[in-house]
């Protein structure tokens, strides 16, 4: 069991992900002010309702316009402690930006993600420079301790809100690096691991303890946590890649999408074979689109997404698909994979069947990447945790408490895999519920119960 504080030093430098440049580079001061001034400052703005954490977006934007950088960042973090990463990874087109009233005028909507990134980065830089912290933990001894399982966005958000009110949160993470999918999965042209470590360090500095390399259910028993702590938060995300187990899968060249992305992002010894020419990605979700775009951006000439239904039915976002197609990613609709065909152990093609004509044919390729969703691993933590038929941990919708008293859960493990911002919202709400149950007041909750 190791306790971690200085995380950036853990990170090897020559990760493949560092070859990616920022798809949305940061705003300059001037760009930020021009964009902030464009905001209409709507009342009861639709962008706020579209944000799962309900950040008061017009207020933070107008604070950028007035030069109140610290106040603007505070407005963001109050609602969303992961405001730094969500600024960059949120599918804003589907959330706040998609709700901007300018869309109704066929006018470019306010670039909320860019503004949020600009101001959180600027405020955190100032915090480092001046030592004047945005949030100072309350100087009280509550005597309460909370164990959080998993160091992903859900646990990090939950732990931060607890620490600020004098509760001692301790996070247990099975991997060596904290951050959850923000570290291992989120597309490197959006957000890379070094920035993710900075965010985690920022959360830890408020009095959150982190133990990495500890798998609950294996190294430490879940029951032990329940006994030792006043509450437990389960933020374990969803599990490993689901696999098709097609005939011919055994052997090299068949990947689970998360497995491959993680190699790209975190493994300094990983590189793509020089003669890799053609990759088929099976799936229709955002993970399929992400991995396809990453391979294309790394120079693989033929990257095709193979999907069993049509483009309009796919769960992946259209804006992401368009983004990938700019790098040459193509898509084949209505085809179902049947088997992997090998020549002397080396992959030759993927045998598929057309959903429409019933025709069976081979698509030649060097690699097959399966992006068909993740499998639940909640049971591995403890059989005591009640899950639904999809493997999602069952919680009370108001308090995020599981069927187990004083055990809470949030993030992908309760929703089956949404976004970082949903995990941040869940973590916050669970923290508030714990505080309420102990009669501790969060500084972020006003007398009327609102944030």
């Amino acid at each position, binding site marked *: 069991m190791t306790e971690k504080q200085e995380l950036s030093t853990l990170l090897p430098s020559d990760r493949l992900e560092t070859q990616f440049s920022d798809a949305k580079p940061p705003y300059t001061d001037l760009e930020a*002010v*021009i964009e902030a*001034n*464009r905001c*209409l*400052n*709507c*009342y*009861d*703005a*639709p962008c706020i309702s579209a944000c799962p954490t309900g950040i008061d977006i017009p207020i933070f934007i107008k604070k950028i*316009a007035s030069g109140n950088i610290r106040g603007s960042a505070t407005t963001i973090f109050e609602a969303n402690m992961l405001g730094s990463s969500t600024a960059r990874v949120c599918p804003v087109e589907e959330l706040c930006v998609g709700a901007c*009233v*300018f869309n*109704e*005028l066929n006018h470019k909507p306010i670039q909320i993600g860019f503004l949020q990134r600009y101001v959180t980065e600027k405020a955190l830089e100032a915090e480092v420079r001046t030592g004047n912290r945005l949030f100072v933990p309350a100087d009280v001894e509550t005597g309460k301790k909370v164990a959080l399982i998993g160091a992903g966005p859900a646990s990090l958000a939950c732990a931060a809100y607890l620490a600020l009110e004098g509760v001692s949160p301790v996070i247990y993470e099975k991997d060596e690096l904290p951050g959850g999918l923000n570290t291992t999965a989120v597309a490197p042209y959006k957000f890379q691991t070094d920035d993710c470590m900075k965010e985690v360090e920022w959360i830890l500095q408020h009095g959150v303890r982190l133990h990495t390399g500890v798998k609950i259910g294996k190294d430490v028993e879940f029951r032990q946590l329940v006994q030792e702590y006043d509450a437990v938060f389960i933020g374990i995300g969803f599990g490993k890649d689901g696999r098709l187990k097609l005939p011919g899968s055994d052997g090299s060249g068949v990947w689970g999408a998360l497995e491959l992305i993680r190699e790209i992002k975190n493994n300094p010894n990983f590189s793509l074979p020089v003669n890799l020419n053609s990759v088929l990605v099976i799936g229709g979700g955002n993970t399929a689109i992400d991995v396809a775009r990453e391979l294309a951006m790394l120079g693989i000439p033929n990257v095709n997404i193979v999907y069993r239904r049509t483009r309009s039915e796919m769960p992946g976002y259209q804006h992401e698909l368009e983004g990938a197609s700019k790098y040459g990613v193509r898509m084949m609709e209505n085809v179902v994979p049947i088997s992997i065909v090998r020549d002397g152990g080396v992959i030759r093609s993927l045998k598929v069947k057309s959903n429409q004509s019933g025709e069976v044919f081979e698509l030649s390729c060097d690699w097959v990447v399966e992006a068909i969703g993740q499998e639940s691993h909640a049971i591995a933590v403890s059989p005591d945790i009640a899950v639904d038929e999809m493997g999602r941990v069952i919680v009370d919708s108001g308090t995020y408490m599981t069927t187990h008293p004083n055990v809470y859960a949030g993030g992908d493990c309760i929703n089956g895999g949404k976004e970082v911002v949903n995990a941040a919202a869940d973590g916050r709400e669970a923290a508030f519920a714990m505080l309420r149950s102990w009669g501790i007041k969060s500084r972020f909750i006003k007398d009327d119960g609102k944030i």
Partner: protein
Amino acid sequence: MADLSINMCGIKSPNPFWLASGPPSNCGEQVMRAFEMGWGGAVWKTLGKPIVNVDSRLGAVDYSGTKMMGFNNIELITDRPLDANFKEIYEVKRRYPDRAVVVSLMAESKEEWREIVQRSEDAGADGLELNFGCPHGMCERGMGSSVGQEPVVLEKITSWVMEYAQTPVLVKLTPNVTDILDPGVAAVRGGGNGISLINTVKSLIGVDLDTLFIKPTVGAESTSGGYCGPAVKPIALNMVATLARDPRITVPISGIGGISNWQDSVEYFALGATSVQVCTAVMHYGYRIVEDMIDGLNNYLDEMGMKSVNDLIGKAIPGFVEWGELDLNYDIVAKIDASKCIGCGLCYISCLDGAHQCVHTNKGQCYAYHGEPDHGFNPRIEVSAPIRHQPKNGDLAHVPFIDEKECVGCNLCMLVCPVPDCITMEEISHSKGKESWNDRVARGLV
């Protein structure tokens, strides 16, 4: 093509757009470039006993990302030798005989006025403008606005100039007075051939938040300056119109203050100006802006079926009346076009907090308290169903609706609405006929 040429009390110019006295008309080379771009005339940077200027001298108000929506300066009159100025005036007139060159002057004693008037006219000036307006630096020396603020002194100095001047004389007024008619009438009584207004409005542009020095900063100090640019246009329009409708003002007016384009100029003409002068907009964008001013004015006059810019002068003046003459029975209410509404909620919050609580939404707490005998004490009663907006198709839940019975027709919601023509004010017809406050007073009702 309409006729844009004007004759302002004998000063002729091919179009009504003149450079105002200031940095853009500081020297001959500049004025010639301006004329090349199309400016009809220029009022030369004020001449007088040479002075020394300070650094810095300019400051600006930026508003929501718009630069220089207000502008201020602590600059004085010309800091170049008089001889050089007169030589250049002569050269400009020689090369551009069809343009109006008006020389702005500021002097102290009668003798000084005589000399500078004669030298200006010898150099070829088409007219003179007496600077009784500068609100800083010169007034402490008994010139500029210290003259403009004393109608008796203004009248006397004007009459001195009239003794010597062979060319038309414009008197430039300061807005830093209680009633612009006082200096206006004095200028006419003193014999002035025309009036120019406004000069700058006495101002303090702001404070630097890091140093707490006042701007524009000279070392660590500053002083009151003169405000101009788009922000002052409404102040100037009011003063121009006040002079234009007064029967005692029998001379033409040159309108100045915040003019940046042809639309601004149309407002000035409609309120009684014969020519217009521009300073800040040229300092911001350069002489080139005159191209659109000429072109836009031309197109506008054509569209309005007016043959000449002179047809426009004073056209809006009959509608400029005292408050007591306004029709108390005229009624309008706000209407929201649901198909245009984007749901920004600004009409709702502005009417709720800044007007009369008549815009409502379907979204939750309604603060309407109309119909209550104790109007204002019970602000949380749900608005009743009949006045709810009833969308015909689609989900229009985001569209606010207006309590028309309570709407006072103030315009606020229309002004804040970001979508053109989404909120309009519609007249409510009635059979009551016009009745003004003065009518009521006359009938002994109040």
